[in-house]
């Protein structure tokens, strides 16, 4: 086994870039959302300040071991997703620890954070957290189903489980993207994408008006800061998967930034102008619309 030790600092560099990009992009999206409400919105560096403030709080209270581990799991879910994925196609520095079967691992990591969160939120003992996390798990499992189907479809289409090879197959012009070669799978996956981005209409598990604010109700100071850091990494990591699988990957950082930004903007656009579904309604939505699309995409391939 020839492990290249030089990959470790490069992987950290990736994480560092992604964290900063995640903070800035999150604030930018927030600002764009605020424009819909005719506001200016938060300053673009606001998320840095929030995180520093939360790390700087003097007290923090624990509710048990899992309460500690919840944010840690969540963060490791985000970081792990990022680390085992080729972020920049064709780049030695930013291919990270991608290997032949990384697609399966990525699917696992997408879910990992939510599970960790469930354990942590359950330990916190707040009824809102428990309700929120059960809703979240139901909805995420439902949203993952079409995504998994779309992934299988793509894996079948390209006859590989390596993300790098999938990206390689999509090179050479926009018409080679999965978006155009397998549109049904992409449609199913994009619906799933909406379902897992914690924005309306699929954000019933953090709904501030019903169960403020769901799983993280009890989390504060450094736990919350950890989760905020993850909030910056995880969406970007997830979007990078989508980008790699369906939108031709990225050959350079600027290309990645632009693609991730537009994908994120897609979910934000939908989120701004929709109220949220109830959890059984969203499950029904996925069952009725997204899952058949996923099945269809597998059958077509």
């Amino acid at each position, binding site marked *: 086994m020839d492990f290249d030790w030089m990959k470790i600092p490069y992987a950290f560099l990736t994480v560092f870039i992604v964290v900063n990009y995640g903070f800035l992009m999150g604030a930018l999206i927030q600002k764009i959302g605020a424009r819909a409400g005719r506001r*200016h919105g938060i300053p673009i560096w606001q998320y840095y300040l929030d995180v520093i403030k939360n790390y700087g709080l003097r*007290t923090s209270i624990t509710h048990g071991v899992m309460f500690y581990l919840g944010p840690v799991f969540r963060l490791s879910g985000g970081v792990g997703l990022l680390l085992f994925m080729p972020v920049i196609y064709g780049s030695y520095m930013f291919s990270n620890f991608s290997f032949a079967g990384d697609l399966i691992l990525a699917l696992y990591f997408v879910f990992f954070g939510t599970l960790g969160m469930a354990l942590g939120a359950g330990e916190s003992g707040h009824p809102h957290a428990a309700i929120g996390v059960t809703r979240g798990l139901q909805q995420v499992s439902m949203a993952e189903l079409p995504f998994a189907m779309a992934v299988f479809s793509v894996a079948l289409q390209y006859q590989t489980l390596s993300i790098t090879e999938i990206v390689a197959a999509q090179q050479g012009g926009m018409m080679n993207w999965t978006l155009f070669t397998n549109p049904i799978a992409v449609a199913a996956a994009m619906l799933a994408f909406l379902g897992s981005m914690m924005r309306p209409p699929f954000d019933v598990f953090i709904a501030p008006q019903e169960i403020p604010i769901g799983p993280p109700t009890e989390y504060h*100071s450094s736990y*919350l800061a950890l989760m905020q850091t993850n909030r910056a990494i995880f969406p970007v990591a997830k979007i990078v998967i989508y980008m790699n699988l369906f939108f031709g990957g990225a050959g350079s950082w600027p290309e990645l930034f632009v693609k991730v930004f537009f994908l994120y903007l897609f979910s934000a656009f939908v989120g701004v102008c929709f109220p949220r579904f109830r959890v059984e309604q969203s499950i029904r939505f996925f069952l009725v619309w997204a899952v058949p699309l996923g099945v269809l995409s597998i059958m077509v391939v």
Partner: protein
Amino acid sequence: MTTKPELMKRMVKGPDGLEFEVDPLRDYYCEAPPTVMPGAYIQIVEDFFNWARSKSLWILGFGTGCGAIEMRPLMTPRFDAYRFGVAWRPTPRQANLFIISGYLSTKTLKRAIRAYEQMQNPKYVIGLGSCTINGGMYWDSYNTIKKLDEYLPVDLYIAGCMPRPEALLAGFEEMKKIIRTGKAEGANQYAENFAWYKANQKRVIHDWDMPDYNW
């Protein structure tokens, strides 16, 4: 002091058939009193944290009185307090700034104290409106407190009935200055004078059925 039935010690049979004793006042709450938390050892680090804290004020979204009506405009296009790093959090755990928006009836005072104690150090309190200062319009009411700083450590008062959103924005700016100079140590003040605050609170709240300190 009478205890409510759900707070009494009792035997509970769990869904799995096991019987166990529950003493809600001991099991569900923490009785440890608050302690004075010093700032960072190095002054420059503390200054840095204070700067970040002043730039990121998270307000507990608890409208305790009529002042809550002017909170809505603050979040919306005309005033847009988000520009100044002010945000609203629905849970006390994540909030740093508690705005007592107007008069506090004794029933709300009890909830306000609990919400305040659940917030994390350092935490700040702004008293909004004349009624928090000296009773204001309700100076002779039998159900509202007249002087907020007897019960909670207040960093700043915004006078008026009701204060305009501009006054609130100015108040936030003042609050930021106080935090940046490191004078906003309300939580430590509360911990230092804990007995005094508790005695004041208990004099007003007649059915005190919770532990003295419940985080």
